[in-house]
């Protein structure tokens, strides 16, 4: 809770932090990012996964929804390179197709909460006073809920579906972003360049949008990339429990739930290893990219 603020406040007095504000300059950012070997590896994995997911119908020729009960849980063969599942559907094409679902859940959910977090955090930091108190206590409250339990409850109540999962993660994930933005806005608000803008007669809307936000957003990008990794794990977990994306739509999480049966777990690796590896790869790739972005955006943090 206030631990984050404590840390931020102590950072604000840190002599290193008193330097030029960090702006997102794309060219120098790319230069620094490129030096981060792991981040480049992550980026490459992510590009490959995206191509595989988007191009799924052309790469895997089998129909991921085609039920063939004669092909019940068959092992890998020339026709089905990763075998078939409990409804005789082709696992390979389902794994690829599931990538679309999982990646888009992550992307949409995180975009949603970043938007909410930036608006609320920016408002709280810029206006201060009671507006700040109300918003931040609200954030504290949302953070204090045992989130997974609240998420499964809401999803079960409104009905599990891909859109509800996006919406619920999106509506509950914003507090850390709001805190981050608020902290940055608070410290930026007092800086000379903002005061100069104010002195030259800029209105508060213009100051917020033109002078403060561009400087406050760099850490948000980093938080958003780690957030996306978490959202993908969360969606997979929910779908694994049967409370997320519903079959027949494939998602990496709901494909894994077959492995709750020990028979599948022990004898039919093709049903559970591929989707699990895909989740791990996607999440790892995104985490590596996030780490690279963090180092690239914050030169002081570089090792």
């Amino acid at each position, binding site marked *: 809770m*206030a631990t984050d603020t404590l840390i931020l406040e102590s950072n604000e007095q840190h002599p290193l932090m008193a330097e030029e504000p960090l702006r997102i300059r794309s060219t120098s950012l790319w230069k620094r990012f490129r030096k981060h070997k792991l981040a480049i590896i992550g980026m490459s994995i992510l590009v490959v996964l995206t191509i595989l997911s988007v191009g799924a119908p052309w790469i895997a020729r089998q129909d991921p929804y085609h039920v063939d009960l004669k092909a019940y849980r068959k092992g890998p063969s020339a026709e089905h390179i990763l075998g078939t599942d409990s409804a005789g559907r082709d696992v390979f094409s389902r794994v690829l197709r599931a990538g679309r679902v999982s990646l888009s859940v992550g992307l949409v959910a995180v975009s949603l909460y970043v938007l909410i977090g930036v608006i609320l955090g920016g408002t709280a930091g810029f206006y201060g006073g009671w507006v700040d108190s109300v918003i931040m206590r609200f954030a504290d409250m949302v953070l204090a809920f045992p989130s997974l339990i609240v998420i499964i409850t809401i999803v079960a109540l409104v009905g599990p579906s891909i859109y509800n999962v996006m919406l619920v993660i999106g509506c509950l994930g914003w507090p850390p972003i709001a805190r981050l933005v608020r902290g940055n806005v608070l410290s930026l608000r007092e800086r000379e360049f903002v005061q100069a803008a104010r002195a030259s007669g800029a209105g508060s809307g213009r100051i917020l949008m033109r002078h403060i936000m561009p400087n406050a957003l760099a850490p948000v990008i980093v938080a958003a990339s780690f957030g996306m990794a978490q959202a993908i794990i969360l969606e997979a*977990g929910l779908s694994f429990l049967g409370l997320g994306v519903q079959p027949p739509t494939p998602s990496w999480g709901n494909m894994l739930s077959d492995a709750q049966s020990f028979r599948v777990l022990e004898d039919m690796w093709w049903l559970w290893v591929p989707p699990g590896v895909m989740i791990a790869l996607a999440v790892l790739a995104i985490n590596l990219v996030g780490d690279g972005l963090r180092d690239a955006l914050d030169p002081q943090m570089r090792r």
Partner: protein
Amino acid sequence: MTRFILRRLAISIPVLLGISISTYLFLSLAPGDPVTAMLSPEQMSSLGPEWVEQQREALGLNKPFPVRYGLWMKEVAQGNLGFSYRGGQPVLDLILERIGPTLRLMATVMVIALALGIPLGVLSALKQYSWIDYLVTILGFTAVSVPSFFLALGLIYVFALKLQWLPTAGMNGVGVTPTFRDSLSHLILPAFALGLAQAAPLIRYVRSSMLESIRQDYVTVARAKGLRERSVIFRHALRNVLIPIVTIVAIEVPGLFGGTVIIEQIFAWPGMGTLAITSVLGRDYPVIMGITLIGAVMIVLSNLLADVLYAVIDPRIRFS
């Protein structure tokens, strides 16, 4: 100091209040009725619907929302979290029965995380930029990236199904008198499934703060005094790194609480997570609400603890 703690407690009050209001709102939106939820099924059947109707009048259920909330809160404050729709047991009893196993799992996870995180973090810092450092970094990234439930399935596959070293489910063997050995063997797999991911942030923290620590003046002084390297590292540098770990552990509690839900389900661990999932699937709202409330209180308290410890440990943080 006392003032700081009181102030932090005061901040927690609106948070808890907000949580209870939204919980109550949710309970009243959910099918069923918040006050009949407070009656056990035996009471319901023996007293009959007329009595319930009367009671509803008497309790002021037709009164405005704040009054109804107040009545509900009064019951909650007295420890009546309502009764399960399914079994009819008091929710508080159900939770108390399940909280022990969950805490046991969480504590073991933390022990594993610390036992892995601290040595690996120190090693990584002392051998900065060596292949060990890179290996530890990559392992750390992998540990946070593999979802706990996939790791759990992998662990079950290897250690329970193929090697048959460890049991696949439960907290104790069926029909066996629980021994320490038996309990431990049931704990290992679920605790590792969660512990590896929890170790990663610790490694990261210990590494970076160790790197910072070994460049401090007091470490240089210790070296200049001619102390052995081992003594410099462990007695002087590491000591200051270790203290703030208490707060990191406290910060990780809420996330860990969420993590136990899925892992408990996979390992049929009789904790709050399995209770939560059965209640959600069975639409047992009073139980869900009870778990949410208790969970929120646990999280608020652990955050409070983290803040207070942070302030106690580091005198440079002022309590204003």
